[in-house]
């Protein structure tokens, strides 16, 4: 049992973006002030999160109870910050600052409508994201999870045109549908099975229950599909659909917040709802956890193959995201400390890398209006900073040194090796090769086109600085974290609640 410290810091971290929402709405006419509020909230949030880091590095956890026992369920609404949550919170809150900067540039550059609503819901989504990160029990987790689904819908459908409508419809129907159909029953079943204790503190929730192998596997899959923000196949198609959103939304939410919330929930389930003995029960040919591993592996390979065929840059990145998310699930489902650590690190690594890629896509769109890879041949000549950042981001996503992606993938790889599951090792290697295949050729073509391109004339320049600066920052971050990963690594030790 870790020592716990009572502190209101997590609440403030979560609240400061919530407080920003009414302020943004009130000052909707003062554009500058409104954006300052966004930045202020972002910095404040990051500050609060950072302030908690030393406590966690001391090996303590921070708890803070919001409501003493939801009426009727006797489950508290509770924040409990541990290493895993901290990593996620750090990623989300730091990247919000960057994305805010980027968002301002993007929205101004394209003269978008309804910017107030955009920033307001953006802040609301961040509040929900941190809520998930800090959630101290399954109920709190679920509540913020649903809040995030609803708060992001106006962002996805921001354009309010037909395409946005369809995308938004897919988005909500997948997220809400799976959560109603799978997550709620799984939640209630867990609640009944565990006798009303849903807390993440202490031993795993279902540790002392007599779950049979089959009921475990059904429950596990219900959770994994119920948190369909994790994008595991066959419930993945909301993610490409949601790419109709403006790029800042895709960047932060669909590379960082939303999808990572999904995998974060799955990690929580694997590490803290089930105990290892339950998950290692045999179903015959497979163990319970291996079922999840196989689903994840399938998703990794299939989505990478699909990504190869996509010409729309954002869609290619979306399918890449689906694959990378399943890395994280696979890392957790291997039930090995190092692999799980790798999974947690990959949350951060993939977030930083993928947000860079998305912001590059957005910057290209702002500068040239191009969406398709086939139109981007030779673009590196005119937009070297953007494409350079794209290259570094790709390296990180693929997992090549000297980027942070290498660190996380290395951990997963090591974990898989030491469990002796060589099938999954092969999956990891194969998919890395596929990653290279779908990410690096565009970069190559952008810099070294074979023949003249439309980018030969001088008309096209880099996007505005507000767009370029963030992607420079994040790509730098990819490299910096490779050299200084120790804090993050020490935060993600010992994820499994019980062995």
């Amino acid at each position, binding site marked *: 049992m870790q020592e716990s410290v009572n502190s209101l810091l997590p609440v403030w971290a979560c609240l400061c973006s919530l407080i920003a929402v009414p302020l943004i709405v009130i000052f*909707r*006419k003062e554009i500058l002030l409104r954006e300052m509020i966004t930045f202020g909230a972002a910095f404040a949030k990051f500050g609060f999160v950072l302030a908690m880091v030393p406590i966690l590095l001391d090996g303590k956890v921070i708890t803070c109870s919001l409501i003493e026992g939801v*009426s009727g369920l006797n489950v508290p609404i509770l924040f409990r910050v541990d290493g895993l949550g901290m990593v996620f919170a750090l990623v989300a809150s730091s990247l919000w600052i960057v994305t805010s900067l980027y968002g301002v540039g993007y929205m101004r550059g394209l003269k*978008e409508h309804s910017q107030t609503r955009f920033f307001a819901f953006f802040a609301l989504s961040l509040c929900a994201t941190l809520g998930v990160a800090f959630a101290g029990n399954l109920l709190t987790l679920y509540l913020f999870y649903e809040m995030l689904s609803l708060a992001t819908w106006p962002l996805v459908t921001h354009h309010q045109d037909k395409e946005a409508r369809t995308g938004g419809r897919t988005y909500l129907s997948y997220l*809400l*549908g799976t959560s109603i159909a799978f997550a709620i029953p799984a939640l*209630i079943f867990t609640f009944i099975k565990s006798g009303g204790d849903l807390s993440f503190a202490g031993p795993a929730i279902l540790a002392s229950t007599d779950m049979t192998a089959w009921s475990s596997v059904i429950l596990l899959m219900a959770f994994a599909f119920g948190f369909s923000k994790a994008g595991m196949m066959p419930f993945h198609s909301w993610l490409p659909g949601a790419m109709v959103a403006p790029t800042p939304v895709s960047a932060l939410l669909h590379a960082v917040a939303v999808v990572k919330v999904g995998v974060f929930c799955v990690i929580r389930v694997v590490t803290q709802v089930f105990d290892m003995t339950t998950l290692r029960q045999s179903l015959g040919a497979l163990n319970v956890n291996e079922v999840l591993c196989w689903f994840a592996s399938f998703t990794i390979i299939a989505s990478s193959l699909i990504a190869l065929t996509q010409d729309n840059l954002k869609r290619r990145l979306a399918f890449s995201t689906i694959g990378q998310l399943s890395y994280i699930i696979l890392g957790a489902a291997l039930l090995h400390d190092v692999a799980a650590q790798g999974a947690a690190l990959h949350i951060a690594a993939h977030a930083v890398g993928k947000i860079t890629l998305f912001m590059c896509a957005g910057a290209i769109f702002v500068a040239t209006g191009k969406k398709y890879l086939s139109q981007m041949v030779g673009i590196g000549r005119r937009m070297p900073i953007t494409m350079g950042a794209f290259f570094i981001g790709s390296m990180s996503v693929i997992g090549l040194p000297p980027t942070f992606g290498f660190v996380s993938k290395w951990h997963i790889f090591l974990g898989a090796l030491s469990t002796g599951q060589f099938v999954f090792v092969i999956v990891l290697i194969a998919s890395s090769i596929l990653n290279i295949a779908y990410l690096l050729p565009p970069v190559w073509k952008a810099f070294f086109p074979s023949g003249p391109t439309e980018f030969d004339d001088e008309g096209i320049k880099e996007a505005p600085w507000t767009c370029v600066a963030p992607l420079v920052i994040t790509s730098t971050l990819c490299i910096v974290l490779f050299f200084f990963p120790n804090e993050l690594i020490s935060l993600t030790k010992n994820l499994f609640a019980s062995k």
Partner: protein
Amino acid sequence: MIDQIPAIIVLAPLFGAMIIGLFGIRDHRVCLPVVFISLLVSLGASVAAAQQVFNVGTINYFVGGWEKPLGIGIHLKIDALNSLVLVVIGVVVMLVSFFSIRRVGERDTEKTPYFYILYLLLCVGLFGITITSDAFNLFVLIEVSSLTSYALIAMGSNKRGTVAAFNYVIMGTVGASFYLLGVGYLYLKTGSLNMDGIHAILMLETNDANVGASKATTVAFIFILVGIWIKMAFFPLYGWLPNAYTYCPSTSSCILAPLMTKVSVYVMIRVMITVFGLDWVFVELGWSQLVVWLAVIAILAGSMLALAQREIKKMLCYLIVAEVGYMVGGAWLADPDHWGMTGALYHILADAMMTLCLFLFAGIVAKRLGAFEISDLQGLFKKMPITSIGLVIGALAMIGVPPTCGFFSKFYLIRGAIEGGHWEFVAALLISSLVNAVLFFRIFEIAYFGNKPAEGHDHSHDHSDDSIEEGKGSDSTVLGREASWSSLFPLLASAAIIILLGVFNGEVVALIRVTFENSNHLSGLFR
């Protein structure tokens, strides 16, 4: 004073109706104050009764002082089972009477006092049904509420509404007659009309006739049950409901839709618990499986039919059919800890408020926007933001999003279903939630987007920031903006209660479960 509460709850609206009959017909200004005062008295008395019940214990009231032997007079009883239902009825009728201001008598002002007389008599009926502990008195009061509801539906409705009202009369009469017949069979077997009295005789082990096991008792139960099912529009018997509630004036549908079906569900649960006893119903009869399957079909059919509707009110009506399935199924789950029954009772309260909220919404948009079909709601979020709040909360509760009460009622029902081993019911609940989600997000989508979906992403749009406030170009010909406060207040109040009921569900459920904690409550005076 406190011991007269059961009589006061029923009598206040009765006297109100008579006062309107005497004076309101001559001067219409009398009507509203009288309605408010009498309903306020009832509501206050209900709350006081609930307090008394949970602090002291069951309130028994013997009209005419005929206490012993039990059953010679009429016995009114307020216990843990019905005190909350009383309060909810009080709240709903109070809110709807706000809503009725300036709506009643739009077509024909002459009829305003008659509407209010019928309205108050309906309240008398509903309160009376809930309070009484006499099987035959229940029939009379069912008829009071039915007759008034026939009239409330038929008065001022359009052509189809009149036909629907006629069908309702026929079905309602058959339902009440079946109930009466069932009571007759029971009386024949037990010689008593008092619910507790009947139960005591049914439970009598030593009697030579063995009343509990006789065929006539089973038939009695079936007829009572089917009669009540017709009244509550349970699945195969729901035919009268959708048209009747769709084509009647919105004030009438706002009072009838939340209360009539819910009170019938209460009657069913009362009959199951107090008259026959859960042991008899679940163990001796053992039809739990059958009824739960019926409920599953009801839920699925209601949801699917709702999905097929284009009219707002009709869609809501089919949702009522599905919700009735929730409650009947929940009551019949027969799980050992009575979580299903708890869920059903909680859902009576929750669904009354949810239905009220959504029907109020439908009434408001029908009047302000002339919107009867779902597609008429385009751009609603901009045109009527406050009304939209009501819609959103009501809809989220229907879908079952925490912290609204809809989530918790589903939680208890699912809990009961899992513990009772009725997985099919769990599946049905989830599918219905999904369908509700589809339904209401379809509405949200229409309400959120403007009149026409723009062709692709239009960059030339004016990027002035306040497009939320101004509405998009052609859309700014907004009809009258927001509804009046007399309509908005009940809508927002019901929305607030939906959330409060959800947030404090533990307290509410603790009160509900008083019924099961103490076996004395189950059989009233005898055990």
